[in-house]
């Protein structure tokens, strides 16, 4: 058996960071190599080097034993390397055919695009690999799972035989993941070799022939999937023992604190993205909102926190309606918000930590006295919170932007939890965090629940929803497909709801 691809001693430095440190990996012909690691372990950087998007500082790349120079995506494509990016590289307002042909366009008479020829080629590829897709459909009208097929077709159209799949399951429902695994199987059978990048342990065990684990830019080791277990892989990935489940007592829910009725919201582009949503969050429980990203969750949270106006419907907070009010008013009435994009909406990155820790209350006593800010109180408040919430920082005077993702999130949690709250709205609270920080944030959220706060958690990670929630609502295309008790809900059932199947149908089958 030959090695189709070998990377040796790849090193890449970014200002202040060693993203890849002498990395060696080997891909065997016709096999699946899983590249496992946490966010920030250097997986994507490594693949961008292989695909010619970044230049490595040191190291060599060999394809079928021949050392090659890859300076641009074109070089990679010529070597038969194709990449399916984590964030799809598709132009939404163009058709499947146009997206596939972009970059190597066949022409009629040397001038006009020959779309028919490409469409036919797409149909051939579809038939051969079971990648069904309409060549004339516009990308923006296709569900995410189909968009991913288009990405794979793009790679196959360029006759790649080494495929890099970067976090391919991140945006898929469990059923779509099954479909993807079938496609991967067909690809392997027709002789392709695949590098599968992920941070999800179960997937690695399900598909990989070889596993290489990265941590902090270094190869920790390779392991045979037959000998690997979730536990073993987690330890390799994180570097210490981790608790994969959240410990929590049964909830003791009381009266509703947040009641949403028949809510409609438009996004910034004036599309009606939330369409008639109703639910309530009770004191002392966690309501999880599951769903594939982009089904209206973001807009729902924006509406609840006053960042987007309501089109129709009512929101009642502690029996008082929220209508035409400001985000500040909502915060003052006891809502805490952990926003989806912590760097844009959660923190002011160019402000020091101590200022970020009082952003909700800076205008009130004790932080403000008339028009002047009370620096001593601000500093001591920050010292206390940093200590209490275990924010790892050299001091409280550094800018929030210098912290790691996990510590940034801790600053937000510290700020929101340091004032009296009735409702906590946490949107994607652990996205992109390391396992240690995830554990910590989860514990804090459950602690708030047990203190009697009503908690709304929005997440596209089904595992997170299942481990935190007491009840689970599933959102699809701006609507809630059903609300389930977390104890009895199964992953399969949630997956069907996430794909738009109605609740009644899931229980029948």
């Amino acid at each position, binding site marked *: 058996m030959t090695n189709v691809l070998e990377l040796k001693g790849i090193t890449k430095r970014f200002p202040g960071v060693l993203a890849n440190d002498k990395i060696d990996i080997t891909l065997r012909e016709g096999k699946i190599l899983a590249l496992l690691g946490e966010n920030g372990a250097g997986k994507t950087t490594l693949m961008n080097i292989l*695909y010619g*998007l970044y230049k490595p500082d040191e190291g060599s790349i060999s394809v079928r034993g021949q050392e090659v120079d890859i300076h*641009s*995506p*074109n070089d990679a*494509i010529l070597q038969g390397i194709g*990449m399916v*990016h984590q964030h799809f*590289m*598709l*132009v*939404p*307002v*163009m058709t499947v055919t*146009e*997206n596939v*042909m*972009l*970059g*190597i*366009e066949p*022409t009629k008479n040397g*001038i*006009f*695009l020959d779309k028919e020829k490409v469409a036919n080629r797409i149909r051939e590829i579809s038939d051969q690999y079971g990648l069904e897709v309409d060549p004339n459909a516009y990308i923006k009208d296709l569900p995410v799972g189909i968009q991913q097929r288009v990405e794979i077709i*793009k790679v196959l159209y360029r006759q790649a035989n080494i495929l890099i799949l970067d976090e391919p399951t991140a945006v898929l429902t469990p059923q779509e993941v099954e479909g993807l695994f079938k496609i991967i199987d067909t690809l392997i059978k027709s002789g392709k070799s695949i590098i599968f990048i992920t941070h999800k342990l179960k997937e690695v065990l399900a598909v990989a022939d070889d596993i290489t684990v990265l941590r902090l830019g270094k190869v920790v080791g390779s392991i045979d999937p037959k000998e690997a277990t979730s536990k073993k892989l987690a330890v390799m990935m994180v570097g210490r023992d981790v608790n994969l489940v959240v410990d929590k007592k049964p909830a003791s829910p009381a009266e509703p604190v947040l009641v949403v009725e028949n809510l*409609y919201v*438009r996004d910034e*582009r*004036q599309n*009606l993205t939330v*369409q*008639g949503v109703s639910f309530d969050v009770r004191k002392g429980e966690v309501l999880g909102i599951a769903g594939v990203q982009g089904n209206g969750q973001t807009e729902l949270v924006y509406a609840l926190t006053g960042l987007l106006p309501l*089109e*129709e419907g009512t929101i009642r907070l502690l029996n008082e309606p929220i209508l035409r009010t400001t985000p500040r008013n909502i915060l003052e009435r006891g809502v805490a918000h952990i926003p989806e994009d912590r760097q844009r909406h959660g923190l002011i990155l160019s402000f020091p930590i101590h200022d970020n820790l009082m952003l909700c209350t800076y205008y009130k006593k004790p932080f403000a006295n008339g028009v002047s800010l009370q620096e001593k109180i601000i500093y001591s408040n920050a010292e206390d919170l940093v200590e209490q919430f275990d924010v790892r920082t050299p001091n409280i005077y550094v800018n929030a932007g210098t912290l790691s993702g996990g510590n940034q999130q801790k600053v937000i949690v510290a700020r929101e939890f340091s004032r009296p709250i009735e409702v906590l709205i946490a949107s994607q609270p652990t996205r992109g965090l390391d396992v240690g920080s995830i554990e910590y944030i989860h514990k804090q959220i459950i602690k708030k629940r047990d203190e009697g706060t009503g908690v709304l958690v929005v997440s596209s990670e089904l595992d997170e929803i299942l481990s935190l929630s007491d009840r689970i609502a599933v959102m699809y*295309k701006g*609507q809630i*497909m059903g609300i389930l008790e977390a104890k009895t809900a199964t992953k399969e059932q949630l997956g069907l709801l996430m794909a738009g199947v*109605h609740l009644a149908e899931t229980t029948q089958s």
Partner: protein
Amino acid sequence: MTNTHTKTASEKRRQTSLGITLLATGLLIYLLFGISTESEQLTTFGLNLAGTQAMPIGDLIVPAQATVYLMSAIAAFVGAYQLARGVRSSGALLGIVAFTFVVAFLTWAAAGKSFNLTGMLTSSLVRATPIALAALCGVISERSAVINIGIEGIMLIAAQVAVVTATLSQNLYVGLILAILIGGAVAAFHAYLVIRFKVDQIVSGVAINIIGAGVTSFISSRFLQKATNTLNNSGTFPIISIPGLSKIPILGPVLFENNLVVYLTLLLVVVMHIMLFHTPWGLRTRAVGEHPKAADTLGVNVYLVRYVNVIIGGMIAGLGGAYFTIGSVGRFDEIMTAGKGFIGLAAMIFGKWNPIGAFSSSLIFGFADSLQVKLQILRVPIPSEFLLMAPYIVTMIILTGVVGRAIPPAADGQPYEK
């Protein structure tokens, strides 16, 4: 629980307010133009243009009051229908009502007199030409995601270069080619600043406008005005009548008796449409404007596409500049572009970043512009200062998004970082 829910409260509100606006327009037509027209007056719309080769046909003579009433009724009916039933395409409704308003206005303004419609349409196309060229420059730049608001400045510089070089060389074609080249050169400078150094695209564009206005005004007052005959007197491109086609009534004089610059503009609209939507270059341009990273990962050189597009755009704006001097009056006056470059950008937006759309909306601006001239001749009881504002008022109305909001290319104005 399905997507059958189609209308929300605010959509209904919008429908109602549109309906009421249309009804009010009907009423307005009646009040403004209907009451003051006398019943026995006739309005004559001249369809023949003196000095052209078109076969003569009869003029269109209509009873003024009846026509105004009819237009008022149509507008009111459309408004009432919208209130009662609701129509999806608000653009079409607004189009109909705008049409009735304009017809009623013209009928009223020319009541008891004669108004040459063919002449009006001809001058609309001519006046639309520089606007359309500016709009095409905008389309081609912004489709690759580079905003160029320096079109006004580029046109001024090109206008001056064209007339001076044409006068010196005694050859209009020399002036034309140099105008196109200088347009490309200035745009290349803009491209270099915003692509290579990621200078803010608006700032760079504003700088070009200021430099263009300043330098051309300086040269004009310092040199051209003292030597008008030797530097600033080129003559203009002659009218070329296309044999046969120019004999068609109305269409002949409007479309087939024009000068070189107008023909080039019409040709460019068609060529650019085909290029943008049916060639590899166009596909790459659109991809770079929408999602440059996607284009980059497929081996498309994002920077190269942007350079090429901005420079071609500049050459088109250069042609637009040449129109002002060697294409219409044969001499350079200070700030003679009078905001046409900016109106061109409005036409680009209204035309949804589409060559044919941009050209069509340029015609609306050209129409507004030539209307104001005709109305001054007709001695309409509206102060001429207000009439002069017409094209700019149309620009503002269109840019407020009353007529449907256009969506720009997704990456428009953003520098690309690898």
